[in-house]
């Protein structure tokens, strides 16, 4: 019962804060709403038994990426943060998104997992927990992709420096 309550609270928080992100005229406000979204999603992760990912979510997303966004927003201080001018496009854009949502929802509904897709704590072997199990998989089976990801980040870092540099 506790799990349901927690889920619904987190879900509502996430949706509301996401709405906040896309409706606030001031980009700083959007960013702050997004902080709330990230925390809610971290809570969802905890509920799904992915504690390590939840921690990463808070540390990397909320701690690093969002701060980067805030930095840029403050640095540029753009005058116009508003919406596209024509209301017709506003409505059409929302409508398209709703169609996408319903397509996904119908797919999920008709797949039958609405009733049978059970969610619960993951069973770990003796002496194992989420972080250990996670590390076991990441540094054995996914070692090469992991290294490649580090390379990607390096490239992104150099690229960002080169692009944003004053010349």
């Amino acid at each position: 019962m506790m799990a349901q309550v927690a889920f619904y609270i987190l879900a509502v928080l996430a949706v509301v804060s996401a709405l906040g992100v896309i409706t606030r005229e001031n980009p700083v406000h959007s960013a702050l709403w997004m902080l709330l979204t990230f925390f809610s999603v971290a809570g969802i992760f905890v509920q799904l038994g992915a504690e390590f990912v939840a921690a990463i979510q808070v540390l990397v997303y909320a701690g690093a990426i969002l701060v980067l966004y805030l930095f840029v927003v403050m640095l540029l201080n753009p005058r116009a943060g508003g919406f596209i001018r024509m209301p017709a496009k506003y409505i059409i854009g929302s409508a398209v998104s709703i169609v996408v949502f319903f397509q996904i929802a119908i797919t999920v509904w008709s797949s039958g997992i609405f009733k049978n897709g059970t969610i619960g704590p993951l069973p770990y072997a003796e002496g194992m927990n989420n972080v250990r199990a996670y590390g076991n998989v990441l540094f054995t089976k996914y070692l090469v992709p992991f290294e490649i990801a580090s390379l990607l980040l390096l490239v992104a870092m150099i690229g960002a420096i080169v692009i944003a540099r004053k010349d």
Partner: protein
Amino acid sequence: MHLEVLILLGPLVAFLINGLFGRLYIKNNAHFVAIAGVGLSWIVSIITFFRVMGGHSVDATLYNWVAAGKFNIPFGILVDPLTAIMLIVVTTVSTMVHIYSMGYMHDDEGYWRFFTYLSIFTFSMLILVMGNNFLMLFVGWELVGLSSYLLIGFWFYKKSAADACKKAFVMNRIGDFGFYIGLLLVIVTFQGLNYSDAFQYEAIQAIKANTYTVFGMQFSLIDLMTLGLFCGAMGKSAQFPLHTWLPDAMEGPTPVSALIHAATMVTAGVYMVARCNALFSEAHITSMVVVYVGMFTAFLGATIGLTQYDLKRILAYSTVSQLGYMIMATGVGAYVAGIFHLFTHAFFKGLLFLCSGSVMHAMHNDLDVRKMGGLKKKMPITYWTYLVGCIAIAGIPPLAGFWSKDEILAMTFANGHMFPWFVATVVAGMTAFYMFRSFFLVFEGTPRNQHMHDHAHESPATMTGPLVFLAILSVLAGAVFGYPLENGFIHHFLGPVLTPEGAHPHHLEHSTALMLMILSIVVAAAGIFISWLYYIKVPSLPGKTVKAFKPVHTFFYNKWFFDELYDALIVFPIVTISRFLWRGFDVNVIDFTVNAFGKVPMFIGGVARHLQTGRMQTYIFTMVVGVIVLFTIFYTV
């Protein structure tokens, strides 16, 4: 390594050095390089000549140029008596012309360029005569054509020179088309390009019976082959009907006229026919064609030469006429006589041209003989050397022209070609007449243009030196090489290579030969005498004669209207059709179609470009709609 390779390398290296560094570094010292190159060739050629006399010969492949399966094109040289004679002619005249040009081209802005072209010409001509296969011959053939083009158009800013070089090129191209066909027939027939493949007596006998039907007429293979090759000779040696380019080529500098358009390049056709004597002697139809083309050309050149006033043109038509002699000689099977005439002609005609250059130098580039006269005192060296040249070409013994020309006449007679013999004899008289006409008009009598006469002066030593040298050769070359008639040195020397197997040369009775000799001397003397009568004794006679034979004179004076005829028959229709194709077809049909292919995409693009709004959100929107559509299709189906 063969010593003879040096002959080729000399001019080639000179050409490369002058061509690469001439404009910036060598400039007015270009003659050192060029003369060093050609001088080396000359010396080695003389050495080679004496070695060949001693029985030396070379037929070597230097390297294999093209190898495709069984088909090979070697880059090889052949040195035999015929080549040795040609080497002597080419390098001697070339060296003299090089030295002469130092004086003649002295102040020209293209000094280095001139010597560069002379070097490449000499190299090309040597390739032509030294190659041991048909392709080398062809390469040399085209290279001399190119250098001739460059040198005729040396003063390319003069429209007449630019036109003349184009004309020479195009006329040669027509001949070369036939040459190329002949060459391909040789390759296909003999499965090889080497002279040694093609000139096998057995191989020629084996294909003798092969015939082809062309335009409904039966030709033997060998006739077709040689006719094709002879087409090339007609272009290069300025034979009727392709002779019109040679007189126009006089637009080039005079040393060039002497070297290329009198002594060497134009004789390439004669050389080629003589080289292919094994083929030509078996081709009876071609031989007839060769005889009559040669005869007619000789007559044509002489008649036009009678009436011209431009000194260089007189010499040019005389060259056409003499080339006709040589070709005729090869046609009747007298290859030795043809090459002998080529040999002597090179010296005295080179000499005459260089003299005309000297006169031109003195008269400030005016060549109209009507304005000259009385130059004897002003230019003694030119006077005497020109006289030697005139006597030589007229055929008065013991100068060079007599020996070779008389032999051609005798051989024509001996082989039973009575009509060509008769025409050639008449032409000999005409030659004597018009050569002395030019001589009397230029050097004897009184000055007709006092102003120009006053400014006339003898040319510098660099120009008179070669004149004297060539004059000595013109005096001696005939007697030394050709005495006694039909049994001289040159006959023993060239006989082995120029007597085709299976040929039965006719020989004249001794008394008949003597009669013919006296007849030809009489005809030549008569020509000189009439000339003297007309232009020294009774100066009013020429005018009266012209009046009496007005239509004939007009006809000859206008060069038988060949240029006009070609314009009307070939140039005009082609230009008209081309203009129609350009304005009518090309613009309206082809360009229209091509433009339509361009305009349709432009129209579609003009409509479609509005899809590109440049707004990011539109693109994302379109993409999302696409995803929805795809999702729907794949999910529902």
